Structures are given as C-alpha cells and as structure tokens.
C-alpha cells in the first residue's frame, strides 16, 4: 500500500517539476525544477525495483550534468529579452501539437500494456555481472563515446580560444 503511495507521490512530483520547468522565468529556477524532477524520477526507479539505475540517476544526472548546468547558468548571467519574453511565437501551435502527441501516445500506451506484476528488485551486483558479461560490447562503446566527447569538448574550446584571439 505504502509502496503505491510513494510511487504515485514521486510520479506526481516529477510531473509537477516538468510543468514548472515550462513556466518559470529565471533559468536558475528552471534548473532547480529539473533537479527536483530528476530526484523524483530516481525515487520512481527505486520503487520499481531498479536500484542500480536509481543510484546512477542521482550520481550522473543530478551530480554531474545538473551541477554543470548550474555552473554555466551562473557564469552566463545574461539579462536579455528571453528573461522578459519567455515564450516564442509558436506557443499556440506548439500547445496544440503537444496535446495531439499526448493523446496519441497515451492511447498507444493505454492499449498496449499488460497488468502490473511487481518483479524482484534488480540490484547493482546482478547489473554489473550482466553488463560486463553479456553486454561487454556496449561497455566498450560507452568508453569510446566518452573519449569522443572529451576530445570534442577540448576541440570546441580550442576553437573558441582561437576565435576570441583572432
């Protein structure tokens, strides 16, 4: 019983956070809303038994990605039009399309899911074993991708440095 309540609480909190993201004006506040959403999602994962995933969510997303984001927002304290006029000219058409997608995907999901059966929790150990035994290729690809990202970031910064100098 309590499981369900917690699950729905976390879910609701995630949705509220997402909606707030669209409404708040200052980028910093938007970032904080996103952090709240991510934490709630971590809670959802945990309630669903994917403990390893929940941990990674917090570690990687909140701990690295959002921190980076917050730093950048602090650095780029630009006060321009976007602070005043939050929305682009596509507000109405966008909303219409959004509702269409919501309806469409929702219908698909509604009809396609079987009843819920609570499974056993999937901890870190089974995850690690599976990852490094059966899905070792994905593991290698992941490391390649990270190297590529580091190189790309360095290259972009070099470009930036050259551009500012010249």
């Amino acid at each position, binding site marked *: 019983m309590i499981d369900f309540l917690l699950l729905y609480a976390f879910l609701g909190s995630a949705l509220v956070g997402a909606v707030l993201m*669209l409404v708040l004006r200052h980028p910093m506040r938007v970032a904080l809303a996103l952090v709240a959403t991510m934490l709630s*999602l971590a809670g959802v994962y945990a309630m669903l038994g994917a403990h390893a995933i929940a941990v990674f969510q917090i570690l990687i997303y909140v701990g690295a990605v959002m921190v980076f984001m917050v730093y*950048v927002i602090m650095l780029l304290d630009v006060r321009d039009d976007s602070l005043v006029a*939050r*929305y682009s000219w596509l507000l109405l058409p966008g909303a219409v399309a959004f509702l269409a997608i919501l309806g469409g995907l929702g219908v698909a*999901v509604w009809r396609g899911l079987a009843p819920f059966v609570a499974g056993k929790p999937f901890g870190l150990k089974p995850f690690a074993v599976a990852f490094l035994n059966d*899905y070792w290729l994905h593991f290698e690809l992941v490391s390649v991708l990270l190297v590529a990202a580091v190189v*790309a970031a360095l290259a972009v910064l070099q470009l930036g440095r050259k551009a500012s100098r010249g």
Partner: protein
Amino acid sequence: MDSLQLLGWSAVAIFALGLLGVIIRRNVLVMLMCMELMLNAVNLSLVVFAQRGNPAEASVLVFLVFVVAAAEIAIAIPIVLLLVRHKRSLDLGAYADLRG
C-alpha cells in the same frame, strides 16, 4: 488504471512536455534543460518496460542513455558558450543566421 499504464503514460507526458519546452522557451539554456528532460522521460519508459521483461537488457540501455546524455551536455555547453560570446545573447531569435 494499472500502475504500469499510468507510469507509461506519465513517461509520454514528460517527453511531450520536454518537446513543448524546446518549442516555446526562448532561452537557449532552458532549451538544453528541456532536452535533458526528454532523455529522462525515455529512461523512465525503459525502466517501466524492464519490469515486464528482461531487466538486464533494459538496464544496460538505460546506462547507455546516461552516458549519451552526459557526453551531449559536455559538448553542448561549450558550444553555447561560444555562441554567447559571438552574439552576446541567450535568446534563440539571435541565432537565426542559417536562414534561406
């Protein structure tokens, strides 16, 4: 309503909200954050489906998505920094140079 259905539907809702955010918000950083939201929604849907079938496979995929998101943000931020240095503005309307 079943909880799995509700969860699936909320994943869809969060994804749609993220996409809407990309369309209607003018600040570039906010747009980036909405893209992150979309990725999160995808993760949620993956975890939901993992409950039904193979948890190992789904977990690996989710992990991959994490890595991709991290890599993406690592590169997107410097690009934004460069853009801002050029245009002195975070408003997307200022970046419409590739028109025509």
